[in-house]
């Protein structure tokens, strides 16, 4: 019996050490992993979607201006299948007043989902039944070979030697900071790439059947859970067919009595296509600032979102904002406040 207990203690210590090492050496940080760092019931808005979320919406700026807190459950090229599971994940820790769901990838073909896109969601989720369900759902729709499935359940199989890249440890230890409460600002986000504006079409092409099923499942879940949800179509360039399929998704969502805010049809914030994009799909830090100022104002006016700016428990939000300003100065040589002033004046 004594030996049995010894063995159990050995295993427990091993698991603790393993989790520690895994955290330091392997996990690639993205907004989903930062989401877990937030205290329980501290987020007022949960914003879910692809990289448009963490590159467009400056959460700490929104907090600084209006005092509400936003958690991003976003990852690059996030498959739309993930949304339902990420809502479930957030419900375990948070009771937000509002969910914002980015539908820019609602029309993507699931059979073409890339491994990296799935992994950025599922590898970052904490181990639970919901995580396993999320993995299964993605794999069911994808064309990934069955023999490779095990690598999704045990992600360290793939990442166990990523630690050899020198950036990983410094990144995971927080030495290389590029996320501020989910908003991403690194040197890449300062790039200005000229885009040629194309008109957003109002025509409709029917969504593929499996995309419709996934969307309807999500809508049913939201209804069942009685969640307050705003769907958005972020401002960016779309392929014509993609644009038209998204319009079909919008009509389905609106038929289910939910609001959709299509920023491609909103002209109230002045995005300059020659300066405010870093590529065809993402706003740079200048565009993101314009978008955040507009959207956070819209949210504070249209939804009941509390102001925490005087609450000492939320000091970390102000600290992150200050850090963002310092780092922006380091990266661009410019003052973030003067950037804001210019935008406010415009």
């Amino acid at each position, binding site marked *: 019996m004594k*030996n049995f207990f*010894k063995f159990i203690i*050995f295993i427990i*210590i*091993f698991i603790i*050490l*393993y989790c520690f*090492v895994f955290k330091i*050496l392997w996990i690639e940080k993205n907004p989903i992993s930062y989401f877990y760092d937030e205290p329980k019931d501290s987020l007022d808005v949960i914003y879910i979607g692809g990289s448009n979320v963490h590159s467009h919406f400056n959460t700490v700026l929104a907090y600084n201006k209006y005092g509400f807190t936003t958690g991003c459950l976003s990852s690059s090229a996030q498959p739309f299948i993930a949304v339902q599971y990420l809502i479930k994940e957030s419900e375990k820790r948070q009771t937000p007043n509002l969910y914002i769901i980015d539908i820019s990838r609602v029309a993507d073909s699931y059979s073409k989902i890339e491994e990296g896109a799935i992994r950025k969601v599922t590898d970052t989720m904490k181990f639970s039944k919901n995580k396993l369900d999320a993995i299964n759902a993605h794999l069911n729709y994808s064309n990934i070979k069955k023999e*490779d499935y*095990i*690598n999704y359940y*045990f992600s*360290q*199989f*793939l*990442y*166990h*030697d990523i*630690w*050899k*890249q020198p950036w990983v440890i410094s990144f995971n230890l927080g030495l290389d900071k590029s996320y501020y409460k989910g908003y991403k600002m690194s040197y890449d986000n300062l790039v200005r790439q000229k885009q040629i504006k194309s008109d957003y079409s109002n025509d409709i092409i029917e969504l593929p059947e499996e995309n419709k099923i996934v969307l309807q499942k999500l809508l049913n879940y939201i209804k069942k859970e009685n969640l307050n949800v705003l769907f958005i179509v972020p401002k960016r360039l779309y392929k014509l067919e993609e644009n038209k399929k998204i319009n079909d998704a919008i009509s389905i969502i609106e038929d289910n009595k939910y609001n959709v805010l299509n920023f491609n049809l909103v002209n109230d914030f002045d995005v300059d296509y020659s300066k405010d994009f870093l590529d065809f799909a993402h706003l740079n830090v200048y565009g993101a600032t314009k978008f955040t100022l507009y959207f956070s104002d819209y949210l504070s006016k249209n939804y009941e979102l509390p102001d925490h700016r005087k609450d000492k428990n939320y000091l970390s939000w102000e600290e992150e904002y200050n850090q963002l300003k310092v780092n922006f100065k380091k990266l661009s040589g410019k003052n973030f406040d003067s950037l804001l002033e210019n935008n406010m004046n415009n």
Partner: protein
Amino acid sequence: MGLTSIIFALFSIIVIVIYFITPKRFKWMVLLISSIFFLFYDNFSLYTIIQALVVLLSSYIFGLLIDKYKTTKKGNLFFLLGIGIILCLLLYLKYTNLFLTTLNHFCNLFNINYTFNLVYRNSLIGISYYSLIMISYLVDIKRGTCKAQKNIFKCMLFMSYFPILNSGPFIRYNDTKNDLYEGHKFNYYSFCSGLLRICFGFVKIMVISQRFAVIVDTIYGNLSSYSGIYILIAVLLFTLQLYSNFSGSIDIIMGISEIIGIKLPENFTSPLLSKTITEFWRNWHITLGAWLKDYIFYPLLKSNFMQSLNVRCKKIFGKKIGKKIPLYLSMFIMWILIGIWHGGAYTFIIGTGLLQFIYIFLEDILQPVALKINNKLKINTNSFIYRLYQNIRTYLLFSFSMIFFRASSVSNAIQIIKSIFKNHVTTGNKLFDLASKGGMLEFLIFIIAIFLVFIIEVLEKKGNVREKILKQNIVVRWFIIYAILFLIIIFGCYGPGYDPATFIYRQF
């Protein structure tokens, strides 16, 4: 089911747990059921069932008959029939292509315009192992050194005990039967020791062998892109890769058996520290060597033919040389059989058979010359430098023979040997890039891995490392075990792209 696969780990855990919770008298049945499951896991069909049944029924029925009639002519007949059936099946499944290749060579030689197409035979895992194991079982019954097993299911367990089906070692009925059929109680010390040995196996395979495999496979796979030092390094590394892979898999097999309470014979005792090829083969794949000595070499040497040859040779060549000729002839036959056992191709016959015989033959006949030279030059043969020279010489000779073992054909092996002596050029990846995968840290680990092979060898030669670790106080002991576990997790080569079924010795 590769030894380092998750499925094998889960399978082994389930078997071990069920084994220890099962009442003593039924424990052997747990091993039998799991062995049958393992045997057919990758290859279940009527064809493979028939293969297993042929070996099992021949060994079981003829074993009983030999036991009953062993001193009579009938006994001899049953003995020949039993062994003949097992051998025929083995030859049919594993050596048809060797036969067809030889026929094709003869056709070429005599300008006959006909080519026999090579065939693929679907054989069960471990057929080369359990066929020889069951042959030794029949021979031992015939010799009267063991009794035939009356329970067919127990006979089946002896034939198919699952850990050894992957890479051996060869077991003998008398040495293993009690351990196999007696139910063992859980023993904490054996459990820890076995687990530690499994960890050592994982280090050897996943941290060391797989790391070398990247370079070896790339260079051997792109021979036209490399020459000179690149080929030489691949040749030298292959020996380390092969040894780490094979001895690592044996460690896992022995570790699982130790946990269950079954003692298997050791297969390696620091072969890389051997001073001669003769010594090397006493420490490398020990159970195969012992099997061939006991069941081929000595019976052959004591056969009437060899005895009469001995007499004749002594008359013709004198006593000293004459008595050596039957010895060398028996050795030659034994080494060719070792080569054939390794695979149905001439590369194996040359690499693990003929060349090894030539080395040992030369060692034997040149020994007096070497002694004279050493005495004349007053070389201290006990000095560290001289011993190191002997170790390096043995390593180089063995590595040279392994060119044939690793090559796809004899002509391919000759091309590799020629390439070693060409200019040191590459149109493929540079050696540093291959070893480092672009990172200095990985290159450093690669270099450490090379030293680690020899450090493990020295430690194992000095005594039982696991015993020493397990004697430490709990803090030191657990620290070492955690360090080994994280060594595997952090530095191991696994994940996508790594196939756990690629055990070099699994194919035999």
